């Protein structure tokens, strides 16, 4: 008798999980360096011919939404997320909404209002280190690594991109077309090609500009570059 109840309970649990799975959208970031899957300890060569080893890569995202075939906008979340290559679980986002969408849209960066209203909490707590304390503003994205081409202590290069005010607003909106006839409950895998930091739009040479630690022209160029690093994985 008891056994029977246990089985019934398990079945209902499984059904419950199934129900959850069909009513949520999952986005998975897949880190790449050009055509290769990215590994933290590996060396890669960028388009300028610079050899790079990347050990830190983080960025904020928010304003996730889907566009349906009828051009309806479905807002997925009001939250900010911090994607961090050192935290596997940060690279998968789950939203409790689902739709037959043709596009997925999101921002890279932190909403400007949160840059001007004092200290935020949670994932936006300045203690996380994605914040400039000497001049107010979030670091929208950072990329740290070493390269023999960097003429700096320890051959380190360090790109920290921020700035939320015109003309140096570094927030970028990403629009990705989803394949037609895709299974709507299937996770959306977004390939993230880190090589684009160096050549997405503007050629960046580590030997010339190994550091970015302020809002301004270089930060804008880097933001333009990494805005091009996302694409929908062909397996979708």
């Amino acid at each position, binding site marked *: 008798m008891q056994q029977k109840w246990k089985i019934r309970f398990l079945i209902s649990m499984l059904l419950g999980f199934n129900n959850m799975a069909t009513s949520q959208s999952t986005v998975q970031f897949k880190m790449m360096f050009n055509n290769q899957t990215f590994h933290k300890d590996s060396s890669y060569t960028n388009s300028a011919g610079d050899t790079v080893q990347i050990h830190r890569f983080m960025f904020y995202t928010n304003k996730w939404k889907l566009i349906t075939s009828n051009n309806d906008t479905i807002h997925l979340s009001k939250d900010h997320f911090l994607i961090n290559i050192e935290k596997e679980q940060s690279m998968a986002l789950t939203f409790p909404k689902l739709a037959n969408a043709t596009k997925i849209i999101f921002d890279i960066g932190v909403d400007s209002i949160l840059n001007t209203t004092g200290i935020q909490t949670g994932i936006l707590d*300045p203690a996380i280190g994605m914040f400039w304390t000497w*001049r107010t503003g979030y670091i929208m994205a950072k990329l740290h690594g070493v390269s023999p081409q960097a003429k700096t202590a320890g051959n380190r290069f360090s790109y920290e991109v921020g700035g939320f005010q015109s003309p140096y607003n570094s927030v970028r909106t990403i629009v990705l077309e989803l394949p037609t006839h895709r299974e709507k409950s299937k996770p959306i895998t977004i390939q993230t090609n880190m090589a684009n930091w160096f050549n997405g739009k503007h050629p960046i040479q580590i030997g010339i500009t190994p550091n970015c630690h302020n809002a301004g022209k270089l930060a804008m160029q880097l933001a333009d570059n990494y805005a091009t690093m996302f694409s929908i994985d062909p397996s979708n």
Partner: protein
Amino acid sequence: MQLKRTIFFIILLVIICAGFIGINKNVSTAKRVPFTVPKGWPKPVYDFSKNPLTEEGIALGKRLFYDGQLSKDGTISCGSCHQQFGAFNSYDHPLSHGLENALTTRNAPALFNLAWQKEFMWDGGINHLDLQPLAPITAHNEMGEDIDNVLTKLKKNKQYPKLFKAAFGDETINTQRLGKALSQFLLTMVSSNSKYDRVMRGEDSFLLSEKLGHDIFKTKCAQCHAAPLFTDYSYRNTGMPLEPFLKDLGRMTITNDAADSLKFRVPSLRNVSVSFPYGHDGRFFSLINVFEHYRNNMQIGPTTDVLLKNKLPLSNYEIGQLRAFLQTLTDSVFLKDPRFSEPGIGVNSNPPLDQHN
């Protein structure tokens, strides 16, 4: 059956009530403190609705302000470089000292009337009072600490979790609460009781030289150092040549706009007689140096303020009267107010002998 239902109902009621007790535990019972705007002053820019002043919050902020634990090696507190007898500036220091004998690159400004200030630092790079303390806490040549380490130290401390609970309703210690508590204390530091204020309120009268100085001030200085705050909080180039070692471009560092080169925030002149040295890098030791700069030594460049394109002509006579007037901006009540003084040291601490003004 009826009895069972009644018992069930009572239990349900008890559970619901217990829930409310649980919720109430997290609601701050801290005592509200009203913020008084001096008569005739503008509306503060700080949003008190997001951080209402309370006795417990102010007390916590004061304790944090004077706590060396906010620095890496425990030796430097906010109060180390913001001393009450200098209206909370770094008294007699062009540049203040940070961790391990490091020198900072700018003069620590006097602190008062912060509820009316929208942007902070000499370059205006910080846009909210709550965020301001994070700059000196994390700067390697000031307090040199990570925010995370500060929070860890506060959480481990026996007193702080209780003090945060008293101020904010529960024992959570995070960056936001650290900033809010410090702001609460800093916001109470209002300086509005100088002789000038008493004269304006009709409680006192100027001596002749002070009155003449006030008239000269109104025609020659008040465009930027506007009453009642004695600053308009704008950024201006007053013709101070670029310091070749510090190479500080001021406002341009923040805006990346060449038009902002060598512009710095107009400082308030309240308590000016006790807050020497002057200038963003403390290059002027005395008011006489400042007057001499304005009338003779200014370097006129492309971003020099339009009001100062022909320097600021001042006769010796005018300088004498202006000095007399500026003395009336010293708020001795503020400088000795025990509400702001360092615990254990109090208001009995005296500044070193004033050799400059």
